[in-house]
């Protein structure tokens, strides 16, 4: 396996003091040499202290700006630090760090690797409305990109340098969804899915409280439309 000192694991965290230590320790156990960056999204609890004492590098946003902005901050850190392979992992313990390795291996033949909880054997309890929304926008994203898309909302992903340089400037401020998948495809970045297992949150309330499904569907359609209407994004020439 290649030297992993060029690997950065980004963990966006908002009030995750309870789960963060375990997540960081498990990540360290799975990826000994990777640098672990916690982006503290304006937490009011001891998220930053916990992360620091667990040995992670911490970047603290001065106020809560939302998941997408926290992730983008991590991408900017990666660009500044010239990391070559970047993994995105939730701070709430849902993503099993054992799958960081397989995600990184997937980067050998694509720019973005998305961990899908629906490709594996495990089954998940997801509310029917949410499942319908995921299926609908997964199908739309699959149709528009021509790729196999089974889990559009997965935040468990790996990116190569090219993808991160692009996303550091263009990542949407909201949760990743079909529009992000389409944006990546339009930028000319290749992506694929690999099976991962996700767990129930270790503790606390979930980061995503399912918004009114009507608003969600409307917003998502609009985001996809806007993504398509915008000029094709340009990648760095080098």
């Amino acid at each position: 396996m290649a030297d992993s000192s060029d690997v950065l694991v980004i963990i966006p965290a908002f009030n995750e003091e309870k789960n963060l230590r375990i997540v960081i320790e498990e990540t360290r156990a799975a990826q000994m040499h990777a640098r672990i960056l916690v982006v503290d999204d304006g937490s009011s609890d001891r998220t930053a202290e916990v992360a620091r004492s667990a040995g992670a590098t911490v970047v603290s946003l001065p106020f809560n700006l939302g998941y997408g902005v926290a992730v983008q901050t991590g991408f900017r850190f990666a660009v500044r630090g010239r990391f070559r392979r970047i993994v995105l992992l939730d701070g709430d313990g849902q993503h099993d760090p054992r799958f960081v390795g397989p995600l990184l291996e997937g980067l050998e033949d694509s720019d973005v690797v998305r961990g899908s909880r629906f490709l594996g054997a495990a089954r998940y309890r997801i509310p029917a409305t949410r499942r319908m929304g995921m299926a609908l926008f997964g199908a739309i994203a699959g149709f528009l990109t021509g790729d196999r898309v089974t889990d559009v909302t997965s935040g468990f992903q790996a990116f190569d340098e090219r993808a991160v340089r692009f996303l550091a400037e263009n990542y949407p401020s909201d949760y990743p969804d079909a529009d992000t998948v389409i944006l990546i495809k339009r930028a000319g970045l290749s992506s694929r899915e690999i099976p991962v297992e996700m767990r129930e949150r270790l503790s606390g309330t979930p980061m995503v409280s399912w918004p009114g499904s009507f608003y969600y569907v409307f917003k998502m359609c609009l985001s996809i439309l806007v993504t398509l209407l915008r000029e094709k994004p340009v990648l760095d020439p080098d």
Partner: protein
Amino acid sequence: MNPRIRIMAITLSVLLLIVIVELVRKRRLREEYSWVWIMTGVVVFVLATWESLAVRLTHLVGAKIMASTLFFGGLMFLTVISLHFSTKLSQLSDQVKKLAQQAALLTEDLDRFRERREEDSSQR
């Protein structure tokens, strides 16, 4: 036009102009925006004093009564200006986002440098 309405419109437009000039003078309103509001005050003043203009405008837009012309004009003006504020607000949130990200990254850089310097000085 009813002379009472006319007096009221003239008084209001003059008051509006005074308030705008005062706000700009105290630097609570940037010059960038002041001209829009000064124009608004001037337009209200002109329409209040020059009735035939308002009548001609009403014929031009095809309205039956002058009041609807004025309401329509006011509504359009408010729509345009709130659209302008929305774009300005989007631009501002984007700038705040970038600033916050940069501040967070720079703070981390600075902390790292401080630690290194303290280690260096304790070694000596």
